[in-house]
C-alpha cells in the first residue's frame, strides 16, 4: 500500500514528464555529488578544537574551532567579560518577549506593557549603575543585544511617527499632506547607510555646542526615523483598505477626527497590516547589520574583528555561516509567524 503510494507520489511530483524526469535525475546527481563533500567538510573532518586555522586546514574540514574560540566575542562583543551574564539575561528577556508576542493568548495592551517593561529592564541591565551592578558604557553594548535593542527600540520609537505620517499623507490639509509625502519619499529615496552616516557623524554638528549623545542612541534615532517612513507606507496601505463606509459612519456618529481615527479606523487598519509590519521588522532586523559600517560592534563587526586575528584569517566561511544562521533563524521564525498570522487574519475576514 504505502509502497505504491510512494511510487505514485514519485511519479506525480518527480517523473510526470520526460523533461521533469531528466531534471530530477540531473539534480539528484548534483546533490549526490555535492552533499557528501559538504557533510565531510562540515561534520566529518571539521575541527571543534584547534589552535589556529592551519590546523583545521590540515584536518581538511570546517573550522568550527574559530566559533568556539571567539563565541562570546561574536555574541557579546566588548562587553566586560565578567559581566556577560547580563547580556545573556537580556537575550533571554528578548526571547521571552518574542515568544509571548507570537503566542497569541497575550494580546494588545498587556503585550505592549510587557514590551515596555522588558525594554526598560534590558536598558537597566545593560547600563548598570544601580542595584549594585557596575556601570557599563553604552559603547560596549555590543553583539546580539545591540542588534535586538536597535531593531526593537527602533520599531517601537518609530511607531508614533509612522502613524502621524500615515495619517498626514491622507490628511485633507494640503501642507500637512505635502510635508508627510516629502518626508516619506526623501527618507525612502536615499540609502539607509547615508542616513546612518548623517545621524552618527553629522548629528553632533546640529546639536547645541557641548551637548553630546552616545553613538548607540544616535543609531537608535536613525533607525526610528528611517523605519517610520517605511512603516508609514504600510499603515497607509491599511488606511486605504478600510472601506469608505467606515469613515462615513464615524462622521455620521459625530466623532471628531482624532476619535474617528483612534476608535474606528486605526484599530482596523493596524490589524490588517500586521503581516506587513512584521516584514518591516524583519527588514529592520537585517538592516541593523549596516551599523557595522559606521563602527558599532554588532555581530557582523564582531566577526570581522575576530577574523582579523591572524590565527583565524582563513575561517571566514565558518564565521559568516554562523552569523548568517543566527539571522536566518530569526528571520525565518518571524516570516513563518507572519504567514501564519496572514492566514488566520484572512480567515477571520471571510
Amino acid at each position: 500500500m504505502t509502497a505504491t503510494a510512494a511510487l505514485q507520489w514519485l511519479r506525480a511530483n518527480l517523473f510526470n514528464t520526460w523533461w521533469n524526469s531528466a531534471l530530477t535525475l540531473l539534480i539528484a546527481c548534483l546533490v549526490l555529488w555535492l552533499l557528501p563533500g559538504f557533510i565531510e567538510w562540515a561534520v566529518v573532518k571539521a575541527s571543534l578544537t584547534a589552535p589556529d586555522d592551519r590546523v583545521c586546514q590540515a584536518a581538511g574540514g570546517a573550522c568550527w574551532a574559530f566559533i568556539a574560540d571567539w563565541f562570546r566575542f561574536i555574541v557579546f562583543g566588548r562587553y566586560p567579560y565578567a559581566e556577560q551574564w547580563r547580556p545573556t539575561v537580556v537575550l533571554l528577556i528578548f526571547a521571552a518577549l518574542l515568544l509571548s508576542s507570537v503566542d497569541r493568548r497575550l494580546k494588545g495592551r498587556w503585550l505592549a506593557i510587557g514590551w515596555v517593561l522588558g525594554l526598560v529592564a534590558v536598558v537597566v541591565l545593560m547600563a548598570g549603575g544601580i542595584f549594585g551592578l557596575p556601570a557599563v558604557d553604552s559603547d560596549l553594548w555590543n553583539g546580539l543585544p545591540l542588534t535586538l535593542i536597535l531593531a526593537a527600540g527602533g520599531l517601537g520609537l518609530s511607531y508614533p511617527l509612522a502613524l502621524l505620517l500615515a495619517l498626514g499623507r491622507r490628511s485633507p490639509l494640503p501642507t500637512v499632506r505635502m510635508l508627510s509625502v516629502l518626508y516619506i519619499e526623501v527618507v525612502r529615496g536615499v540609502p539607509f547607510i547615508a542616513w546612518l552616516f548623517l545621524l552618527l557623524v553629522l548629528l553632533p554638528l546640529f546639536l547645541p555646542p557641548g551637548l553630546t549623545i552616545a553613538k548607540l542612541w544616535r543609531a537608535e534615532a536613525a533607525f526610528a526615523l528611517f523605519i517610520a517612513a517605511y512603516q508609514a507606507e504600510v499603515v497607509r496601505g491599511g488606511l486605504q483598505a478600510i472601506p469608505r463606509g467606515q469613515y462615513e459612519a464615524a462622521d455620521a456618529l459625530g466623532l471628531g477626527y482624532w476619535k474617528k481615527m483612534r476608535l474606528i479606523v486605526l484599530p482596523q487598519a493596524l490589524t490588517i497590516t500586521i503581516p506587513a509590519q512584521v516584514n518591516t521588522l524583519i527588514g529592520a532586523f537585517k538592516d541593523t547589520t549596516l551599523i557595522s559600517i559606521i563602527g558599532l560592534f554588532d555581530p557582523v563587526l564582531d566577526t570581522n574583528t575576530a577574523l582579523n586575528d591572524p590565527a583565524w584569517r582563513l575561517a571566514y566561511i565558518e564565521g559568516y555561516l554562523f552569523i548568517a544562521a543566527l539571522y536566518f533563524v530569526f528571520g525565518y521564525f518571524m516570516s513563518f509567524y507572519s504567514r501564519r498570522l496572514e492566514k488566520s487574519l484572512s480567515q477571520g475576514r471571510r
Partner: protein
Amino acid sequence: MTPAGAAASPAPARTRVAPWRDERIRAIAIQVLTVALILGFAAYLAGNAAENLRRQGIATGFAFLGREASFAVSPTLIPFSPADTYARALLVGLLNTLLVASLGIVFATMLGFVVGIARLSSNWLVSRLTLAYVEVMRNTPLILQIFLWWDVLRVGAPQPRDAWHFLPHVFISNRGVVFPVPFYDPVYLWMLAALAAGAGAAYLLRLWARQRLARTGERPQTAWPGLTLVTLPPILVFIAGGAPLRLDLPQVTRFDFSGGQSITPEFAALLFALVAYSGAFIGEIVRSGIQSVSRGQSEAAQALGLSRGQTLRLVVLPQAIRVIVPPTTSEYLSLTKNSSLAVAIGFPELFSVSNTIANQTGQAIEVMVIVASTYLVISLAISLAMNLYNRWTALVER
C-alpha cells in the same frame, strides 16, 4: 469631520460657530502651526550647525568641489587621476553606482524570472530547492553575503599563477575575475546600426500583424520572422565586414594577468551578492504575479483552443506582468540603494567616494546634500521609467 453641533442643527448657514470650532479656521491654524514648528526646528538646527562650524573653522559652500581630490580611485569608467577635482571624483563614483545598478538590475531580473518559474515547477525537487534558496537569501543580511563573497575572492581564491578557471580563458584569483573581450573594430558600430534597423523593421512587422488581426481576425505568425529580422542583419554585416573577431585573451604573467577585461574582487563580490539577493526577491514577485492570474483564465484560454504556449504568452503573462511591475520597481530601487553597501568593502561607488571626500574636506553636510539628492534623482528616474512601462502594460478600463 463636521463637528456635532453643525450637523445636528436644523437652521442652515445662520448658526454662528465660535472661531476655534470653525473648520476652515482650524484647518488654516493647524497648517500654519505645523509649518511654523518645522521651520522653527529647522532654523534651530541650522543655527546650531552654523555655530559649530564657525567654532571648528570649517567654511561652508560648494567651492571645495573645484579643488584637487588628491586621492586615487580604481576602478573607473572615465579617466581619473588624483590631480582631478572632487567634482570629477563624484562623477566617477556616480558612474560606478550606475554601472553596478544597471548590471545588477539586468542580471537580477533574469535570475528572478528563472527563480519565479522554478518555484512553480511541477517538479518537487526543483520547487523545493528554489524555495530553500529564496528563504536563505531573504533571511540573511545582504552585507553578510557581500563580506562572504569578498573574502572568498580575497582570502580564499589563489594567486593569479594558479587561478581557478572553470571556463576557458576566464580566471578567478585574488586579483578578481579576468575574462576575454573582443578588440574594438569599426564593423561593430555598423552591426549596432544594423541591429537597430532590424529592430525597427520587426516593430513595423508587429504593427502590421496587429492591424491584420484587428481587420481579419487572423493572427499572422510573427515570432520567427521577427526574430530573424532582429538577428540576421547584424550577422550579415559581421560577415560582410570580414568577421573581425579578435579576442583579447587574458594571459597569466608572473604576478598578475595581462590582457582581457578584469574586474576587481570588490566589484565582483558586490555585483554577485546584489544579483543573488535581489534575484530571490524578484523571484517571489514573479511567482506571486503568475499565481495571481486565476486558473479560470488559462482554462478558458484552453477551452478556446489556444495552445499551451499561446495561453502563456497571450493570456497569462500579460495579466501577470501588471501585478509584477509595481513591486519590481521598488526592488530595482532597493538594489540601487543597496549598492551603497560597497562602502563596507571599498568599491568606489557614489557613497563610498563621498565618504572619502567628506572625511578629507570636512564638508560633510555639503557632501551629504549632494549624495542624498543624487540618489533621489536616480530613484525618481527609475520610478518614472517603470511607471511609463506600467502605464503601457496596464489594463485599459472603460
